[in-house]
């Protein structure tokens, strides 16, 4: 922030806040899911439901947010992706302002997989005490299918998160690009990024309205709308 003139704003604050909250939810959900067992299952559910709310925000922000947050701006055509892949081994290849073509594909892939994974969790039960809010609304077959999806995706997602961190390290150590720093401060050095690629503002007002709306929507989707679990004794047959 001291060298404000020598840096350009790339990532808006809603996107940065989103990224770190999402990282917290996904890491927390993954760790409590893999190692927490029954005692951490309530936390697992909270983390997972938090991730769902955040995903809804990210999808909408990818349409109405500033340019570097927009899917239409960062999703590459296959030819551009291919061209980028050829420059990947070059240490001094030009730094992208927002997502590079490969990173863009990775981001969308990660969001999609985590979206499927988190959603599947809404329909399953641990057959003991906890269940997703929509478990009671679906047939046993659907719940079984969701359970299969949820459990089989757990390790692939762990690998995906590992690859994400390895990629960040690769850019830091091999290419000298400080991507983590940019995701914290929102800024990249002016000598690397042309002014035309920076963003003018974080669209704060729009972001605040959207956050309130998405929070309400997520609350409705996860708490209000799901049918009450039946509490009669015949519901345990």
């Amino acid at each position, binding site marked *: 922030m001291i060298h404000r003139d020598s840096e350009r704003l790339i990532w808006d604050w809603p996107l940065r806040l989103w990224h770190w909250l999402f990282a917290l939810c996904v890491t927390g959900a993954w760790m409590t899911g893999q190692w927490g*067992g*029954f*005692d951490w*299952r309530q936390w697992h559910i909270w983390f997972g439901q938090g991730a769902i709310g955040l995903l809804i925000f990210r999808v909408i922000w990818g349409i109405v947010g500033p340019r570097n947050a927009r899917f239409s701006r960062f999703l590459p055509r296959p030819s551009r992706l291919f061209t980028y892949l050829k420059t990947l081994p070059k240490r001094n290849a030009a730094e992208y302002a927002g997502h590079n073509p490969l990173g863009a594909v990775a981001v969308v892939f990660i969001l999609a997989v985590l979206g499927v994974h988190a959603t599947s969790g809404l329909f399953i039960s*641990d*057959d*003991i*005490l906890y269940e997703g809010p929509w478990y009671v609304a679906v047939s046993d077959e659907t719940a*079984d299918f969701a*359970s*299969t999806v*949820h*459990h*089989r995706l757990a390790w692939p997602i762990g690998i995906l998160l590992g690859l994400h961190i390895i990629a960040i390290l690769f850019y830091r150590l091999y290419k000298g690009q400080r991507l983590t720093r940019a995701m914290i401060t929102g800024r990249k050095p002016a000598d690397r990024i042309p002014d035309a690629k920076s963003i003018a503002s974080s669209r704060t007002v729009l972001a605040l309205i959207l956050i309130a709306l998405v929070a309400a929507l997520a609350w409705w989707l996860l708490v209000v709308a799901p049918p009450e*679990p039946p*509490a009669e*004794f015949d*519901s*345990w*047959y």
Partner: protein
Amino acid sequence: MGPYLNKGLSHKRYAGRGKYRTNSKETGLMNRGKLIVLGALLAVAGAAGAQMSDEQAERAVETRQSLLQVMVWNYGPMGAMARGRIDFDTDRVKTNAERLVALSKMMSDAFAADTRSNDVDTEALDVIWEQPDDFAAKIEATIEASNALVGAAATGDEGVMTQAIGRVGSTCGSCHDDFRLDD
């Protein structure tokens, strides 16, 4: 019932082997006797290797799934109380906790039938029979936690019961983590 039936069968074959051996000595028909002994031995080995028929195994699976279902039937209402979905009913907790003690004591027998080599639809993992001591320890934990829940019900304190209900669930989950197929 499955495993006991099987054991009975093996014992019968074993007795038969002894009989044939004596016979062969008496008659002096060594070649024929040896063949019969060999045949009997193979039959014994076959019986031991095949464990039980798939039909028996299916019944064994049905039995243990039924046992777990009855445990859920008893635990479910208490879980709902612990989560505040239905009102606490101390008598119900006492009754159901006592049943859980009895039911969890049936677990080791219910899982005695080794269905690893059978073609059955089950979520029971092989590790149940590969590490019987670990499995027994999990069962013991459930028995202990259920006993503690009976004690908690005696206090009539909702906070104490909630804690104890959670601890029973925790022993269920801990066993599922290691011994039940996830999907």
